[in-house]
């Protein structure tokens, strides 16, 4: 089927939202679902895309970015949410704005059992440390949801995580 091989457009919708929101630093631990967005951010001279060794580095880095007057976004797989919890406590106490985009693993059609526990814990763990969670279940919702999350994060000084369903990413992207 021809449509199955065409690259998805939602990652570039998110990229356009980043541009409009004035995102300058993009920190990430890669996930296959984020690969197009990561590529777009690296190719953009007005953005600094920073590869991390662990997700909590990005939480700290974007707090520093905000102190310096720049906006950022943090990209990760849902497995990385657990790595961030204590650092997110600092975000909460200082009311740093933080925009996180998580691609989900471990729920919709998952085949790897080791992904399931952290997937189950993602929403409760993020909520417990004060992060507002919003979800994207259809590809065409990605742009507007990230735009709304960015407004919430940067206008109200809050951490907001957008969870992109495995349904959106599509089984085609797995293992790439």
């Amino acid at each position: 089927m021809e449509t199955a091989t065409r690259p998805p457009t939602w990652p570039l919708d998110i990229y356009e939202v980043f541009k409009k929101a004035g995102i300058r630093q993009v920190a990430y631990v890669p996930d296959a679902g984020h690969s197009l967005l990561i590529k777009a951010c690296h190719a953009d001279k007005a953005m600094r895309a920073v590869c991390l060794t662990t997700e909590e580095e990005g939480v700290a880095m974007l707090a520093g970015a905000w102190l310096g007057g720049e906006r950022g976004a943090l990209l990760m797989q849902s497995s990385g949410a657990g790595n961030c919890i204590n650092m997110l406590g600092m975000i909460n106490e200082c009311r740093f704005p933080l925009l996180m985009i998580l691609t989900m693993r471990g729920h919709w059609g998952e085949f790897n059992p080791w992904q399931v526990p952290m997937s189950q814990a993602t929403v409760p763990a993020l909520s417990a440390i004060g992060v507002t969670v919003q979800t994207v279940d259809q590809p065409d919702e990605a742009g507007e949801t990230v735009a709304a999350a960015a407004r919430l994060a940067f206008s109200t000084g809050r951490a907001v995580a957008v969870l992109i369903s495995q349904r959106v990413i599509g089984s085609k992207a797995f293992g790439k």
Partner: protein
Amino acid sequence: MAHRKPILDRRKVVAQILERRGDALIMPGLGAPTWDCAAAGDHPLTFYSWGGMGGCAMMGLGLALAQPRRRVLVITGDGELLMGLGSLASIGVQKPRNLAVIVIDNEHYGETGMQPTHTRHGVDLPAMARAAGFRAAGTVYTAPQLKAWMPRFYRQPGPIFCSIKVTTADAPLVLPVREGTAIKHRFREALLGGRAYE
């Protein structure tokens, strides 16, 4: 290799470094390095930290990338840095020219009862920083060595890394402002002016 006993006093070291701060942005690690910076004189462009252990160097990176014309000094503890060793690699790849990472290395977790850290057992943080791509890295044991490093902290193209070996002698508690939002707002206001509240 025999252990070399540290002789420098942390309060004097940090006071000497901050004497020359000029318009530099200071990012202390949680606990004693934050008290050291407070003891050297309160300043709105010091982001006192009371938590976020392991994140100090990365906060310095984000700040250094956002403010390429300002010097950024991370001044943290050996325990704090050991919790975020991966950040040496992330910083080494980004190579911010305006970032210096300084470790006040007492070879112990001072804040929690003086348990030895890995540096007490020979783990060489500057060697790790060099291997991770820092442009310069070294260890300071003596006052003349510290004096030689002083201009490098502020002027040598970064990222640079320096571990300053200090004693475990007790230093009086000097506690700065505690509330995170207050520390954040006054830092941004001092740095960004009216843009701080946009």
